């Protein structure tokens, strides 16, 4: 039978993926940013589609919303790209709320403040969740985006507080809140305080509902652990990007527990759709239009 503690590994397994690739990923981002800045995207910059293996020009891939033209694999995209993709021109990025830093005085193989510093140096925003206020085809909305590149998108106090701030802004502006989720799970360096962000963000979704305002969730790759088990599953409408990995427990942990092969497509967007967990799987190119249509239906009808 199962050993105690095995399960709890699960929600952080995707974070493990992130830790394993942290350095290579960060240096890749830095290099691509610097080369982009110097001479635009050079024509000779190739990349291999992680899904079908096709060799693609990085420039073409990015121009195609980071979707593989061959197999439609949806790559992970950064916060600003997401804002530009979904919001009309003229949106404003909201400040990231300040939170207590390192209240546990946490240290594993590195000090938590050092990990934060490295993540901030490699990212344009101070933590993993950033909000922007703007319009989507003319309809007002506040959009939150979680960035997997910032410590695996992990949910700590800064993410919880930013989520609450985004919802408060939506309530103040009398408009929808839309969240694009991406997270390997909880921010372990914040221990129990990260777990407490699950009820905290749920207080916010309840306040949005009490104000009669729409809450739309866009699940992007990957959304797992405590994020999935709180605000990522509470939308009025649940959208997922094609192929996105979405789940509570990590696949390796499940496999260790049941000792059987996992079903094909397990925990992918299409699988969740087939099991009734999301309303629709929407291609990135159709995402903005879909959100605009939904906002049209969810607009508050004024009672005379």
């Amino acid at each position: 039978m199962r050993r105690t503690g095995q399960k709890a590994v699960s929600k952080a397994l995707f974070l493990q993926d992130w830790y394993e690739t942290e350095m290579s990923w960060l240096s890749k981002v830095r290099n691509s940013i610097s080369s982009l800045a110097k001479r635009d995207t050079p024509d000779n910059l190739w990349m291999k589609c992680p899904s079908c293996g096709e060799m693609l020009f990085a420039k073409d891939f990015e121009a195609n919303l980071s979707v593989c033209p061959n197999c439609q694999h949806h790559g992970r995209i950064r916060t600003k790209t997401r804002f530009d993709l979904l919001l009309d021109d003229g949106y404003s990025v909201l400040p990231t709320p300040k939170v207590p830093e390192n209240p546990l005085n946490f240290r594993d193989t590195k000090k938590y403040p050092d990990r934060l510093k490295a993540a901030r140096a490699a990212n344009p925003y101070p933590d993993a969740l950033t909000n922007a206020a703007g319009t989507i085809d003319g309809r007002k909305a506040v959009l939150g985006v979680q960035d997997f590149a910032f410590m695996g998108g992990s949910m700590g106090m800064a993410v919880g507080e930013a989520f609450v701030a985004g919802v408060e802004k939506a309530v103040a502006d009398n408009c929808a809140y839309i969240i694009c989720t991406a997270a390997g799970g909880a921010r372990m360096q914040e221990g129990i305080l990260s777990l407490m962000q699950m009820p905290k963000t749920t207080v916010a979704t309840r306040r949005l509902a009490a104000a009669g305002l729409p809450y739309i969730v866009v699940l992007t790759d990957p959304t797992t652990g405590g994020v999935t088990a709180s605000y990522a599953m509470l939308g009025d409408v649940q959208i997922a990007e094609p192929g996105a990995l979405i789940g509570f427990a990590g696949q390796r942990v499940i496999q260790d527990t049941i000792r059987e092969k996992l079903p094909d497509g397990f925990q992918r967007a299409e699988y969740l759709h087939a099991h009734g967990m999301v309303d629709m799987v929407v291609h990135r190119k159709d995402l903005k239009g879909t959100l605009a249509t939904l906002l049209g239906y969810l607009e508050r009808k004024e009672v005379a």
Partner: protein
Amino acid sequence: MISFLDFEKPIAELEARIAELRATADGSDLDIDGEIGRLEKKSAAMLAATYAKLTPWQKTQVARHPQRPHFLDYIRLAFTDFVPLAGDRTYGEDAAIIGGFATLDGRKVMVMGHEKGHDTPSRIKHNFGSAKPEGYRKAIRLMEMASKFGLPVVTLVDTAGAFPGVEAEERGQAEAIARSTEACLALGVPMVSAIVGEGGSGGAIAIAAANTVLMLEHSVYSVISPEGASSILWRTADKAADAATAMKVTAQDLLALNVIESIVPEPNGGAHRDPAATARTLAEAIGRELDALSGRSAAELVRQREERFLAIGSL
């Protein structure tokens, strides 16, 4: 017969000597009661000294002790007139979370909690206290009923975490936990939660988003198990003790972090050495908290619960 933990070895040896002396005394005229009494006092003092300075990792082991009282023990020892209620009305009955009507020293409540089981058949029956979506959906159903009939909700938390399985995922483990947490926050009646063993991550918070949260003295509550944190952050399985310390998982840590309201003391040597006394102290502590919350309006209770969680991580 108490099974001893590794760090209790000197106490175990002393207890063995006491048992030996007793056996000798039984079959002879020797008067060694005095000696036995002296050794028993010494043993109790050693136990008290050991338990006064348990490390977070040792506390984790105490919290997981197979003889630690579980939900059904507390039902037997602290509550009366328990009426178990079963099923989520959608898929099935999950015995990893048990709940129903009960009376706590004259107060009618809805009580629910994780049950880990105490031997192999019962552990299998209760799935080691790891609930599936139907367990959380049953909890939601019971919470809503409690709200409807004005019954305060008491939850006893004791789980390594929600069950990681294919079917649990297919039936929406994440959604069930999220909705259960939401149901706690929506309650128009007082809710008091007590972490009595392990508070394992989302599987715990799903029934612990309460007005007041208590922890037994040697229970633990964390976002991931120390073993899990060890393998991810230190990349090795043997840093669990360091991880337990770094993550601040003990009742004393959580009180200092303002995540819980108070600590319920355990008998000398931990709850498993005297389940009845533990149950009594726990019942009194829960009763006090319920009384403190009674008389408040539904709106006040919701508001207090919301502010309690909004404050965590706010400057």
